[in-house]
């Protein structure tokens, strides 16, 4: 019976034309964009810039140029050539350098800041080397001494870890997707409940199905649908990220992100949709749904914002630790804290357990509200009356 209701919910949502079309478009856009953008983002086998160096006047600069280019991560090949009296830039040539080595002349087209900075360093190094040689010193020993002249840094006071942008965005991505998926599924549930109520079909259904079964089947069906929809979005995104070779850029494993997401999707989904489904029964018309959904949206935004702002500044402060264990906050707090690596396995287990305990309690409560309110017509029903009737 429960399964029959869930199946209808799932089929109605998943097979609706609007859903098929929008999911198809989404899929095409993400995959298509990944395929088309790859050459631009990854850049393929990037050709290093070629810089021509006049072999007659400036060849002494070449080792210094190469050292400076390596130090400044400037990808270039320095080719000794015979530069004519009137230098010109051939195809694929970024610049031409003509001696003398102590004061070379650089011919470029447009501003080439990094090339200029490389040439400046090389010239200074060459000048330093010739001076050291003139003074009877060993240029290699000087270079080595310079390389070793680096201060060692010891941090005093507490290490706040700075702002870890990688972990932040990994955690942020998980809870943001979670937030949107939960908002969407909650509103689908609410609309479904109100649709049955406003079309009065609920009276026929309740003559053969218990209210809690009806609500449960709805939640199960919409849950499966949302999960499918989330997968329909996450999988192409993962494909795109893999295709664009962006996966390696994340500091946190994709597997862990997905596990985080799925566990807290299921728990968060159960918590929020059960509550929303029960409360949606308080209104009778689609137009009135805002009076219930607005406070609910706020209820979801508070933990989202707290997770975004509170966790990065104090990943294991007392407020964070306490809120982690509050069922409605946990789906947002735990993934965020775990992205920062600031949560112990014990805390995670406790948070999961508390959510698991509160789900049946909430289901019972929501079932009561639903049963009490679902046959009431007219205006918005008061929560207290619904509980009394349920």
């Amino acid at each position, binding site marked *: 019976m429960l399964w029959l209701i869930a199946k209808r919910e799932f089929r109605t949502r998943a097979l609706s034309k609007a859903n098929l079309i929008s999911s198809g478009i989404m899929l095409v856009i993400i995959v298509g964009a990944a395929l088309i953008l790859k050459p631009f983002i990854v850049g393929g086998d990037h050709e290093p810039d070629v810089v021509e160096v006049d072999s007659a006047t400036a060849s002494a600069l070449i080792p210094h140029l190469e050292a400076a280019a390596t130090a400044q991560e400037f990808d270039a090949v320095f080719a000794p050539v015979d530069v004519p009296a009137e230098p010109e830039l051939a195809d694929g040539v970024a610049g031409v350098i003509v001696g003398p080595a102590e004061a070379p002349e650089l011919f470029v087209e447009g501003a080439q800041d990094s090339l200029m900075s490389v040439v400046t360093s090389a010239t200074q190094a060459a000048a330093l080397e010739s001076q050291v040689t003139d003074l009877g010193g060993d240029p290699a020993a000087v270079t080595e001494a310079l390389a070793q002249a680096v201060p060692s840094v010891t941090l005093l006071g507490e290490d706040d870890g700075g702002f870890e942008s990688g972990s932040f965005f990994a955690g942020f991505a998980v809870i943001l997707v979670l937030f949107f998926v939960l908002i969407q599924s909650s509103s689908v549930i609410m609309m479904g409940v109100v649709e049955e109520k406003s079309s009065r079909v609920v009276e026929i259904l309740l*003559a*053969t199905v218990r209210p809690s079964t009806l609500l449960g089947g709805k939640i199960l069906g919409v849950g499966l649908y949302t999960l499918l929809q989330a997968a329909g979005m996450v999988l192409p995104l993962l494909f795109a990220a893999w295709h664009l070779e962006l996966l390696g850029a994340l500091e946190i494993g994709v597997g862990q992100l997905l596990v985080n997401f799925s566990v807290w999707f299921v728990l968060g989904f159960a918590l929020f949709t059960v509550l929303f489904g029960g409360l949606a029964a308080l209104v009778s018309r689609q137009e009135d749904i805002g009076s219930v959904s607005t406070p609910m949206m706020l209820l979801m935004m508070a933990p989202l914002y707290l997770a975004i702002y509170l966790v990065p500044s104090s990943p294991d402060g007392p407020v964070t630790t306490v809120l982690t264990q509050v069922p409605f906050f946990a789906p947002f707090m735990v993934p965020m804290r775990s992205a920062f690596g600031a949560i112990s396995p014990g805390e995670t287990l406790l948070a999961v357990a508390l959510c698991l305990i509160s789900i049946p309690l909430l289901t019972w409560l929501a079932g009561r509200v639903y049963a009490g309110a679902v*046959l009431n017509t007219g205006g918005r029903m008061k929560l207290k009356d619904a509980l009394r009737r349920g």
Partner: protein
Amino acid sequence: MTALEIDNLSKSYGDLRALNEVSFEVPAGQILGFVGSNGAGKTTTMRIILGVLRSDAGDVRWRGARVDADVRRRIGYMPEERGLYPRMKVGDQLVYLARLHGLSKDRAVAAMEHWTHVLGVHERRGDEVDKLSLGNQQRVQLASALVHEPDILVLDEPFSGLDPVAVDVMSDVLRSQADRGVPVIFSSHQLELVERLSDRVGIVARGSMVASGPIDELRATDTKQWILALAAASAPPVAPPGVSIHESAPGLWLVEADSAESAQAVLASAVQRGAVTEFSPVRPTLTDLFRDVVSAPEEVA
């Protein structure tokens, strides 16, 4: 006896007493017409039978046992406020509802095909309910009450908004269901229709059952009345002792007698005086009964 028994149902909404110890019964195979003015408690009673509402007191029993969830799944119900999924196809919807009532998939499909055919909406199976006319939606609604081969039928105003042909179809369906041994309860404001179709009538007013029983018993009255019509220019009839006669219209006389013999005596004397065009016993119609009951002063203000 297999009957649906409604026993002392009471229900209040806040201070409003919607039902006050309502009792009646519908034997298997009979049709009960449920009448009463708006707000009298018909819909509340039906919702309680279906378990959609809980009563404050009283019981509903079927075959001697209290109606529980299993029995309720075997009831066919048509609520007063029609309800179907507006965006679901007629066929899919009926199959879904039949399956919710416990039918297997094959049986559900067969029942859907049968009832859409009987009710004349088989050509609309692939259309969304929204797209149907109100009359056709009503037929689909009835089909949804019948599609799981119910043991009991509870129909709240099944005839409202139907054209005469559809009324006939609906009446035939109710009769054939009753003949199958199903107790049928239906409410209606069309009293002639109730009188024609029902085996029993329940009249409810202000939350109480004021009259219920086989329709013939209800129509039998203590004082016996006859209507006597005389041809024009006949002399007025003479009243023997124990009989009162008064003219209700020109040439039309209402005879109230304590026995059939006295009434026959009036007829005999009338025949001697002139031509009698009609002489027949008067039995109150359901409409008369209803008016009497409903206009009766409220005992509890």
